[in-house]
């Protein structure tokens, strides 16, 4: 904070990722900029029951640790070999070992050391124990991060929906990286 009115520094605002990424790849010499998904209208479904009675599912973009697929962290460089291209599911009670080395996280300022900072299963289970939510859905689901809008919209999102429905989820928490 500074000055008479306690204003924050001007640079202390959310990073403009769309602009940063566009400039970055243009300067690297790639042609037409990527067209990011953009909608003006957004669907909305109200929670149909008290949260304390709801079964809540978790969706993540993290990947299960894959031995033999190179360094997956903590502190790993970007590892495309650890990517996955199909929706997967895991047991919510299994204490899974999930990694984010296949994602363009901010490697200058974070190292992916603590799964609790990107996969909130532990806290979601605590919320269920404490009665804040009804229960955690039996499975969590992994969403492939894909440049292809067709793959995400036509294949992966319907698959995630089918799995969440199959588990009787009343609501879904999705954690992006």
């Amino acid at each position, binding site marked *: 904070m500074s000055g008479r009115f306690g204003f*924050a520094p001007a*640079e202390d605002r*959310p*990073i403009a*990722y*769309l602009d*940063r990424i566009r*400039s*970055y790849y243009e*300067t*690297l010499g790639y042609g037409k900029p990527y067209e*990011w*998904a*953009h*909608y003006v209208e*957004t*669907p909305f*479904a109200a*929670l*149909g029951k008290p*949260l304390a009675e709801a079964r*809540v599912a978790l*969706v993540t*973009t993290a990947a299960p640790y894959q031995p033999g697929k190179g360094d997956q962290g903590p502190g790993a460089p970007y590892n*495309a*070999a650890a990517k*996955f*291209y*199909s929706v997967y599911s895991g047991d919510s009670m299994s204490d899974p070992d999930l990694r984010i080395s296949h*994602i*363009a*996280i*901010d490697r*200058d*300022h*974070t190292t992916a*050391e*603590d799964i*609790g*900072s*990107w996969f*909130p299963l532990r*806290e*979601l289970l*605590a*919320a269920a124990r404490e009665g804040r939510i009804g229960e955690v859905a039996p499975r969590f689901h992994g*969403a492939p*991060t894909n440049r292809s809008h067709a793959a*995400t*919209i036509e294949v992966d*999102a319907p698959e995630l*929906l089918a799995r969440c429905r199959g588990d009787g989820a*009343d*609501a*879904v*928490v*999705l*954690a*992006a*990286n």
Partner: protein
Amino acid sequence: MCHQTVSLAARALEAAGIPTVVMGCARDIVEHAGVPRFLFSDFPLGNPAGRPHDPASQRATLALALRLLESAPGPNTTVRNPLAWSDDPSWKRDFSNIDLVPPEEIARRRAEFDRIKEVAKSRREEDAAAG
């Protein structure tokens, strides 16, 4: 891509009647896509659920997401996590900031990205072959 993927999945779930909340750190990407509920944490990418090795921040972050899930008045509701990554906001300068990349470094970055794309492509083909 990660924030876009999750945003599109949230939209599909919501359109089918299942309420969602997205937790993430890239505000513009999520709001550009348009999601019903978004808990924005102004943290480096890779920390949508709180600060590492800080269980209290992870607990508070999920608690906010759950409050948002039950109380958003309508779509495109963003709540900003009041927690800060650091007292010093200078970390925000660095991510994919081409202005900070020396000119002699550009070709190397391009080659590295091309290499990554090749690895990703063969990985995708392996997955497709595996069925």
